[in-house]
C-alpha cells in the first residue's frame, strides 16, 4: 500500500500501534509547513529547528500517552503545539527575538525551486526573498494569522480559538495583513507573479 495516499489520522493510528514509518511519513508530509510557520515568527534558523524538534517530541509523547483526540486535522493540531511552544519561548525571553540572516547567507537560499529554467529560478528566488521581507514587516498578530491560515490550513474559526479572539478579529487581522502587504508591494513597485 502506498502511504502517501493514507490520511493523516490513519498514519497517526499506525504510529500509535508502533509503526515508526508512519511517524516518518507524517514528518515528511508536514515538516515544511510546520518549520516555515515557526521560522517566520522567530526569524532564527537554529531556534526554529529547536522548536520544530520540541514540537514533534511533544507530538510523539502525546500520541503515545493516548491524549490525541483531534477529530479534525492533524496538521492544525501540530501547528497549535508549535505556536504554543513559540509563544512560550517569547514569554521566557520577555521580548521578540532580533535575529536576522546575514547578507552573505540566507536560509531562503536553500529553498528547493520547482522550475528547471534558470531565469524562472532567479525570479522565484527574488519573489521568495521579497515575500519573506514583506512578512517580516508585519506586526506579530497579523503574521500569526497569515501563518496559521497558509501553513496550518486552519479556518478562521480555528485561528480565532487558537489565539483567543473572535472570528471577526482573526478575519480583520488577515485583512490588515493582506492590505499591508499590498501597500508595501505597491509602494515598492514590486511584482509578485513570475507568470
Amino acid at each position, binding site marked *: 500500500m502506498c502511504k502517501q495516499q493514507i490520511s493523516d489520522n490513519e498514519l497517526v493510528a499506525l504510529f500509535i500501534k508502533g509503526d515508526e514509518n508512519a511517524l516518518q511519513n507524517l514528518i515528511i508530509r508536514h515538516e515544511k509547513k510546520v518549520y516555515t510557520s515557526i521560522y517566520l515568527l522567530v526569524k532564527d534558523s537554529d531556534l526554529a529547528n529547536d522548536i520544530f524538534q520540541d514540537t514533534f517530541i511533544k507530538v510523539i509523547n502525546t500520541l503515545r500517552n493516548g491524549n490525541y483526540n483531534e477529530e479534525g486535522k492533524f496538521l492544525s493540531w501540530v501547528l497549535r503545539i508549535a505556536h504554543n511552544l513559540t509563544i512560550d519561548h517569547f514569554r521566557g525571553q520577555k521580548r521578540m527575538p532580533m535575529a536576522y540572516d546575514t547578507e552573505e547567507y540566507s536560509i531562503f537560499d536553500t529553498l528547493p525551486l520547482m522550475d528547471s529554467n534558470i531565469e524562472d529560478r532567479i525570479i522565484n528566488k527574488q519573489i521568495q526573498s521579497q515575500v519573506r521581507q514583506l512578512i517580516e514587516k508585519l506586526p506579530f498578530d497579523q503574521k500569526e494569522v497569515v501563518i496559521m491560515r497558509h501553513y496550518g490550513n486552519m479556518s478562521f474559526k480555528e485561528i480565532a480559538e487558537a489565539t483567543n479572539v473572535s472570528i471577526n478579529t482573526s*478575519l480583520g487581522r488577515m485583512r490588515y495583513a493582506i492590505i499591508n502587504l499590498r501597500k508595501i508591494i505597491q509602494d515598492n513597485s514590486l511584482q509578485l507573479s513570475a507568470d
Partner: protein
Amino acid sequence: MNTICTLNDLIAYLYNDTPLLKTVEIQKTIDNNEEVAELYQDMIAISKALDELLIAPEKCVSESIMHYARITAPY
C-alpha cells in the same frame, strides 16, 4: 466598495470561508466592480506567493526526532 461586500467578506471569500449565499453576493460584486476586482486579483497574487514560501528544517533535526521515537518506543 459595494455595501454588501466588506473587506472581511472578501478575505473570507478568498479563503473559501463564506456560506453559499454570501459567496454568490461577493462573486457578483467582484464581477461588477472594477476596484474590488483589482483588489481581489492582488489578494490572490499575495495569497499564492505566501503559499509558495516553504522552508525545510535541517535534515538532522528530523533524524533526531526519529531517533527519539525509536529509543523511547514502549514496544
